[in-house]
């Protein structure tokens, strides 16, 4: 269905002309985290609108789509062996690292975009690292930054998927990006970049609002706004459950 919609979009746009610009949309710009939230998938699609026909000798068009979660500070600690046991020694506080970072492309990232443009638009896992460093304590900050990426890649929060964006007739593109179940609340950004000859031609940003919903949202707000009441309520629930189980088992044994 989304593909059909994208095709329709293309038909409307194709006759118009300017430079190569992006028109894009998503199947959802809001994700609700309910108690049974089990991950989600966003379908991102769009079309390239252009002035003139692409010259025959032009190199192929490339599309890069990335989804970035809210930036949060994180402390990275490094263990070292001291007196025979592993102890946290050095630590680095990374000022801001995205809670989620997924990048999908039409091809290998370093082949389709220059270093300069990757740096400029913050594209690629290695670029991401450079933007988050904030030194203190140790003199080997890059190793700590790499650790953030490595650990989060391992837990599925950071990913780079080459060739995951489909591009048809140099005009119509689409991709599906999976959001993991361990999603953090906040504003997520979808950035779409067009490139040709390793140069970025255009950039478009869209927002996705990720919000808790239902009982989870209620619990979260209560815990932060009425902590004492929340603590007492949680305790009463615990005592009630303990009593209920005890009574239930007594009845069962009669």
């Amino acid at each position, binding site marked *: 269905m989304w593909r059909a919609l994208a095709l329709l979009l293309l038909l409307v746009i194709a006759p118009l002309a300017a430079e190569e610009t992006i028109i894009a949309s998503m199947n959802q710009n809001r994700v609700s985290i309910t108690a*049974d939230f089990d991950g989600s998938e966003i379908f991102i699609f769009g079309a390239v609108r252009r002035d003139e026909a692409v010259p025959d000798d032009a190199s192929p068009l490339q599309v890069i789509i990335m989804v970035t979660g809210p930036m949060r*500070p*994180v*402390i*990275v600690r490094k*263990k070292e062996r001291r007196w025979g046991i592993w*102890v946290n020694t050095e630590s680095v506080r990374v000022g801001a690292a995205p809670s989620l970072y997924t990048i999908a492309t039409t091809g290998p990232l370093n082949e389709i975009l220059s270093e300069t443009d990757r740096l400029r638009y913050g594209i690629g896992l290695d670029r991401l690292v450079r933007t988050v460093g904030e030194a203190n304590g140790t003199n080997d900050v890059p190793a700590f930054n790499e*650790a953030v990426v490595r650990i989060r890649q391992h837990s599925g929060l950071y990913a780079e998927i080459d060739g995951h964006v489909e591009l048809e007739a140099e005009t119509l593109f689409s991709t599906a990006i999976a959001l993991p179940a361990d999603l953090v609340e906040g504003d997520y950004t979808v950035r779409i970049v067009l490139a040709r000859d390793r140069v970025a031609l255009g950039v478009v940003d869209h927002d996705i609002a990720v919000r808790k919903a239902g009982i989870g949202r209620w*619990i979260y707000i209560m815990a932060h706004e009425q902590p004492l009441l929340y603590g007492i309520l949680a305790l009463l629930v615990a005592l009630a459950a303990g009593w209920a189980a005890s009574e239930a088992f*007594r009845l069962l044994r009669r």
Partner: protein
Amino acid sequence: MQIYLPIAEVSVNLFLLLGLGGLVGLLSGMFGVGGGFLMTPLLFFIGIPPAVAVGTQANQIVASSFSGLLAHVRRRTVDFRMGLVLLSGGLVGSAFGVQIFKYLTALGQVELMVTLFYVVFLGAIGALMFVESLRAIRATRGGRAQPARKRHNWVHHLPLRMRFRTSNLYISVIPPIVIGLMVGVLAAIMGVGGGFIMLPAMIYILGMPTKVVVGTSLFQIIFVTAATSIMHAVENQTVDALLALVLLIGGVIGAQFGTRIGMRMKAEQLRILLAILVLIVCFKLAADLVLTPSELYSLSEVM
């Protein structure tokens, strides 16, 4: 079936959590320990952030301990008087413990200290109980009557004596208060109810009968963990009500079964099982300290 925990901000399998709660509840009912020393590492293992695990499991322990306590109250195996005396020391002790915890956090070594505390205390108590119960079992098997435990030691010669009818003791209130105090300090630092320290202290130092020890320990654990739970909710907002609810549904059911199993078993069998369990957890934690970790770096959220 996955469930998204609103405070922990992770998605976990519902049945895994129920099973975890049930297992810890079962042990809680059998041995009269809150189970925090097991629950906390298990929650870390399934990916719950440490701060949320510590804050939430206190709440869950209240539920399973209360369920277990009610079963003991019906069987009149709770020494309320002794429980209150221990508790008076315990609450003061945990207030001290919280301050020490804050100091260690500021130093940035709280994780290591907590693990070292676990290894030292679990190791010492586990070994002590293991050897003692093995000796008791051998004595029974050998056909000889089990020698009565020495009921009079230095503890029984201090002033301020009080009669504890349920425990069949007439001893000074100073040792129970001091034990409560020390357990309170350790419990707050280690983020547990302290049953696994309290239990052997009651048996070996105070000379209380094993059957009474379990219910009495549960009684004082409820108050100590309730205080801890409220403190975590107010100061750190790290109590996840949904996580607690799922754990305690498993926990209270497990505790009921555990209490019944515990009633049917001989005291020394119960002690040797608890000793083995404590030693396993101790070895696991010690191995983590000594073995080279696969990832030298770790991330922690800034709260």
